[in-house]
């Protein structure tokens, strides 16, 4: 394989993984605070660095990633369901929107938010860790096809990382203007979709569209959420 083609393929493949990681970090940042999101990212990067330094060559065995997915997937499913159902409750009027809540509710929310910050850290950590690991697998696997090409494969991944970072920083402002409940619903759908995909892959299931199943899952969960908002709306509100 031509070295430029190898670097380009590595960049494209890595972009998908970096976008998934950035989605999770942005989601945690906007909803649980940037401290949880960035410390989770930092610790995941450090853990990943140590892992790659110690076991780099073994990463060519993709099954190791699938074993991790089986633990991360269910976690994302639980977290995604938690956020998405809250958004559904708020849209259907079964739960007051955040800025309309009474003092008691705010206090309960504050205590719950404290717990969620820890979950936010864990989500950012796991998202960055597993996606970073997949990038490491891509780099190691691609470089194995041609002796001495690891710098090209790693270079492609680095270019992808820089491009995704720039995009994430550019999207930071527009995202912050989106209403909180819409953001929580979007994040819930993304986490639930990723969690379903990863848990299934980890369990050795065959997704019909491969990695593109993610888009189908996003559409499915969105459609079901819309239906649930209509179905769970209290009768008084429907009349």
């Amino acid at each position: 394989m031509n070295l430029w083609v190898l670097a380009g393929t590595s960049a494209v493949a890595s972009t998908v993984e970096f976008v998934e990681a950035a989605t999770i970090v942005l989601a945690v940042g906007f909803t649980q605070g940037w401290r949880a999101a960035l410390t989770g990212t930092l610790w995941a990067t450090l853990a990943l660095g140590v892992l790659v330094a110690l076991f780099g060559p073994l990463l060519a065995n993709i099954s190791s990633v699938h074993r991790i997915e089986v633990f991360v997937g269910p976690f994302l499913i639980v977290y995604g369901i938690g956020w998405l159902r809250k958004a559904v409750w708020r849209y259907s009027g079964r739960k007051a929107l955040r800025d309309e809540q009474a003092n008691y509710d705010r206090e309960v929310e504050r205590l719950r938010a404290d717990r969620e910050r820890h979950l936010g850290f864990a989500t950012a950590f796991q998202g960055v860790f597993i996606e970073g690991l997949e990038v490491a697998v891509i780099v190691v696997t691609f470089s194995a096809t041609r002796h001495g090409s690891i710098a090209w494969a790693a270079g492609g991944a680095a270019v992808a990382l820089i491009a995704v970072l720039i995009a994430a920083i550019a999207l930071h402002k527009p995202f912050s203007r989106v209403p909180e409940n819409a953001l929580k619903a979007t994040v819930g759908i993304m986490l639930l979709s990723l969690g379903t995909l990863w848990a299934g892959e980890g369990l050795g299931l065959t997704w019909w569209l491969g990695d593109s199943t993610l888009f189908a899952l996003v559409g499915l969960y969105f459609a079901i959420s819309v239906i649930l908002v209509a179905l769970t709306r209290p009768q008084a509100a429907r009349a």
Partner: protein
Amino acid sequence: MKALAEIWDFITGGSIVAPAAVVVAVGFALLPLGLDGSLKAAIFLAIVLLGFVGSTFERPQ
């Protein structure tokens, strides 16, 4: 709708940990079955959907 919510609360104890545990348990239970991988994926997705839909019928906390 109210009856559905009460049944769900009774089964899960008002927690999403129980349905999540069911998702994982069903996923692992599917592994040794001699079913097609796509069919297993469909069953797994159905269980996740059931967990999500069911949990939205809980009483908001």
